[in-house]
């Protein structure tokens, strides 16, 4: 998925202007011209310069704003790629209610089933993995994984 340098240029210019404005509100060290805002402003100036360069380059090249990759022609592959962030979002939203083990079992079983279309093996592999990860991190490494209403 190729995005035009023009788009990146505009995004970077807007971002750097925002950082520059925000940095002006940060206080300086007493008696000096620089302080908390110096380093973000310094980064923003370079990002702004690169944004302008990318914008100019994109305008000169007159390339398309968006060139979709081969995978976008396949609805399955589009769903596959969306599934990864969707799984993480599902985890973030649900884990405190369901608990770590049930959330991982639901999330991973569905993901593997979607990718391979084999439900029983997905469920078995996922359950074993979830329990191993839970025991390793929660019981051995003592990471307080979200327990949920079941306490798992």
């Amino acid at each position, binding site marked *: 998925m190729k995005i035009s340098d023009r788009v990146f240029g505009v995004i970077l210019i807007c971002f750097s202007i925002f950082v520059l404005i925000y940095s002006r509100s940060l206080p300086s060290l007493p008696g000096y011209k620089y302080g908390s805002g110096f*380093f973000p402003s310094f*980064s*923003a100036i370079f990002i702004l310069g690169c944004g302008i360069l990318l914008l100019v380059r994109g305008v000169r090249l007159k390339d398309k704003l968006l060139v979709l990759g081969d995978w976008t022609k396949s609805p399955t592959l589009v769903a596959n790629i969306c599934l*990864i962030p969707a799984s*993480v979002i599902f985890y*973030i939203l649900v884990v405190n209610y369901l608990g770590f083990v049930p959330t991982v079992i639901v999330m991973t079983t569905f993901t593997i089933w979607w990718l391979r279309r084999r439900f029983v093996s997905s469920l078995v592999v996922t359950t074993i993995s979830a329990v191993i*990860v839970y025991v390793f991190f929660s019981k051995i490494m003592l990471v307080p994984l979200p327990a949920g209403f079941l306490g798992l």
Partner: protein
Amino acid sequence: MMDSLIQAMHLVFQPQVLLVMLASSVYGIVIGAIPGLTAVMAVSLIMPIAIFLEPVPALAAIISCDAMAVFAGDIPGTLLRMPGTPASGAYTDDSYKLTQQGKAEMVLGANCFFSAVGGLMGLLVLITAAPMLAEVALNFSTYEYFWLTCLGLTCATFMTSKDTVKGIVSLFIGLFITTVGFDMITGQPRFTFGSIELLAGIHVIPVLIGLFAISEIMRRVSSTTPPDASYDGKIGHIYKGVFKLWRNHLPNFFRGNLVGIVVGALPGAGADIAAWLAYAISKKFSKTPEKFGTGHMEGIIEATSANNSALASAWIPAFVFGIPGDVTTAMVIGILYIKDLKPGPTAFIEHPEIIYSVFICFAVANIFMLILGYYAIKTFRHILRIPPFVLLPIILVFCIVGSYSINNSLFGVAVMLFFGVLGYIMEENDFPISPMLLAIVLGALLEKNFIISMVKSSGNIADFFERPIAGSFAAIAIMIWLYPLFRKLYRVMRVKKA
């Protein structure tokens, strides 16, 4: 020194440390041998576990995992023409052509043997060069560190970017990210927008898991080429004739190691660049360059030695100056800070046993490689049986737990997701991600050294150039910055003359 060495041996030769090394080696081999899964990804996934280990087992796990993954990348490259890691990509064609000629055992034996010996050569340089450089570095002030950090970030940007402008963008976005949270000098919150989570800043571990693992998972599940691959051939005795091969290719072996050591020690470069450069140099100096790409051992020996020797030498700038030599050592520096073991020249005085432990771990990992490599090659077809579409969602669970465990907060998981998507978009559009990671690791150091230097010099910029070493670093850095401009001017002038 002897006391520290004995103490280090006690620290390393503990059953639990050796067990951690063995487990991480096996894990590194599995990830490295699966085409598309990189050594960096393997190391980034081991980080959440390393954080909970004692310093020596944590470093031992990273060293073993990295060395094994880089070596194991050679196996699918040789047998299937699908390099497991980018570091193996340089000589994949030659290796595969030799496999087609029925010489798979010879190539794989050479891969394993020269990788292990290359790793040991890199270690030898690490042992000799690091303490000497550390003595010099003890005299460094904030000015030297400021320029050295600039130099490291510059090398990372210029060496890893096909498109310099995009490399610079990646670098400065990374530097900006380090400014989020409390400013350590003034205590002022920056870019937190009222979020309590953001006050502590953005932790490097969820960022790197996102950039390297989540983006890779997204790329793999949307790949248009089928992920399944298989190998049905049989592999015999891999070390048969390997010493004869060594004798016949001694110049290639030494040159490959030299290239690996030099490139590895450069901040920002790493095993991938070392392997490609060693292969190109080998071809340049070969009496039979026309044979390269058709199944020639010269390039394979030189590049496979280079990629593993680079792994050890990358630790030189990391240990001596606290400036990472590659992405893996950038992660190591993150771990060292978490463990309260500040890298830098004082580390050689304050905790030399940890430094010596790292040396010993490197040696042990490379010896493990000779043994485990043999079995890895023998069982390769079984590793390939692990369906990627089962493995990837499970890796995703590890990513989530790893990001969560940093602060026991779902905020880390959200950060990981954000940087995963960002890393995916960046790589799809030729923005390199290594400069961003190195900037996130080094940004705070750069800002701190700059502000302290400015306060020391009462705002006089000239002080940054007055000390001899600082001035030399500054000159090199400024020359690298201006090089593209001069090159462009030179071209314009040549065109005008013509």
